[in-house]
């Protein structure tokens, strides 16, 4: 696979909108994406207080359909796929045999035997190949749908009302999805997100995305970049693949045992069951810095461990993050010390989420 350095960065169909709005564009997983428009803090607070819209068209989609689609996905995904109702959504992991995490995914059940799975941009090609290679014994089609979808996330306490005002019918409830027109453009609306706030994600024809973006912005959604997406997700302790887990980590140490149903026999179930029974040497924890300073990804934690995500929290107004620590020192309230480029910063392990959103679940 060519590296991103050797190939031109891909652009979403909203690129001109981003450039016109003065966005700072950065390379991300092979794409040129907006990291911020007006500023990360303002965008972050717009999502916590009202509504923001994110272009997340870099994310991939894989359709799995056919008579054995349910049993095929049950074999690959860590969660219990049979429990997704038609029009439902579920979070799960894709694991190796040894339990190493290949990706984290949202899967939408469009019909009894028709599923759409959203992948992380950096993992999409690998996920697709992994799924297709394992489809041989199943009566199932695994199809790359990434080129056919743009993806917008509209998030915040006012997001639903804002989208509802542009839609031709009721919006799906949380963790559900349905087909609707928004701004007269047909699309799949999903009651999911990555900010901890209520809101929806829209999957639509890339060519129509600019018109829908314009309608959402005109209706009051603040354009938000990947910078705010990262601070928002970290405040509510949602994992970022590549930071907080990767194929060297299993779901138990990553704190994702809740979306693993070993009884289904998914690839990696035995390893996950063993880790659940025996415990793991390290655990992923959330922390906040006590006093000044901001820990960053890669900072060592004294006594063993490492910061996997670290930022400044616009809502809590202090340094926050997640990282792995020895399991015996992972309890909330435990004091830790983080080596921030040579300066020792005291921190405390906190319960997740670090920030409690108002009036919405954190799925």
């Amino acid at each position, binding site marked *: 696979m060519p590296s991103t350095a050797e190939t031109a960065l891909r652009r979403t169909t909203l690129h001109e909108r981003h450039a016109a709005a003065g966005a*700072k564009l950065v390379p991300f997983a092979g794409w040129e994406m907006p*990291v*911020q428009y007006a*500023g*990360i*803090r303002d965008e*972050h607070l717009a999502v916590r207080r009202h509504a923001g819209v994110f272009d997340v068209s870099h994310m991939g989609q894989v359709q799995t359909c056919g008579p054995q689609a349910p049993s095929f996905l049950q074999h690959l995904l860590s969660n219990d796929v049979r429990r997704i109702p038609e029009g439902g959504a579920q979070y799960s992991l894709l694991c190796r045999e040894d339990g190493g995490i290949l990706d984290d995914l949202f899967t939408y059940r469009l019909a009894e035997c028709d599923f759409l799975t959203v992948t992380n941009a950096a993992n999409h090609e690998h996920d697709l190949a992994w799924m297709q290679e394992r489809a041989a014994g199943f009566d199932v089609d695994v199809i790359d749908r990434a080129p056919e979808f743009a993806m917008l996330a509209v998030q915040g306490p006012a997001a639903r009302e804002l989208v509802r005002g542009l839609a031709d019918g009721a919006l799906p409830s949380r963790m559900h999805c349905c087909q609707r027109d928004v701004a007269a453009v047909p699309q799949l609306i999903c009651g999911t997100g990555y900010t901890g706030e209520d809101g929806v994600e829209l999957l639509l024809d890339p060519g129509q995305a600019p018109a829908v973006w314009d309608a959402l912005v005109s209706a009051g959604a603040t354009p938000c970049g990947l*910078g705010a997406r*990262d*601070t928002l997700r970290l405040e509510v302790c949602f994992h970022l693949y590549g930071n907080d887990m990767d194929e060297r980590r299993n779901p138990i140490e990553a704190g994702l045992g809740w979306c693993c149903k070993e009884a289904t026999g998914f690839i990696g179930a035995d390893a996950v069951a063993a880790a659940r029974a025996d415990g793991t040497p390290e655990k992923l924890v959330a922390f906040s810095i006590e006093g*000044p*300073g*901001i820990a*960053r990804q890669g900072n060592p934690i004294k006594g063993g461990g490492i910061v996997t995500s670290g*930022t*400044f929290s*616009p809502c809590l107004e202090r*340094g926050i993050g997640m990282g792995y620590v020895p399991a015996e020192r992972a309890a909330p309230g435990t004091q830790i010390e983080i080596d921030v*480029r040579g*300066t020792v910063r005291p921190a405390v392990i906190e319960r997740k989420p670090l920030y409690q959103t108002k009036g919405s679940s954190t799925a």
Partner: protein
Amino acid sequence: MTDASYPDDLLYHPEHDWARVADGVATFGITWYAQEALGEVVFYEPPTVGSNVTKDEPYTEVESVKAVSDVIAPLSGEIVEVNAALADKPEMINDEPYGEGWLVKVKLSDPDEPGSLLDATAYKASLA
């Protein structure tokens, strides 16, 4: 945030730092371009008075929400004063990069060193 500006009375380092030299002491800060590239500064901890800085070497850090950036010393010498007010108001580095957002004052060790820096015209040309 202000519009781009590069005052004529300052000397510039290509790593986007400025120096205002008077009587053997230089005030350092980061340029408009640097603060714009960094984004809103949310954390700054001044270095220690009495420590030495070396031209072209990092002497402190500024942090935005997203990232931490080294600040390069435009000239060499000893830090004689720091802008302690920035600890509480780091956003001044964005709002007034040449005024209230100054970082340190340095007693210069080499009076000839300022001659190696860029003037505003040359610095602006380097940004183009």
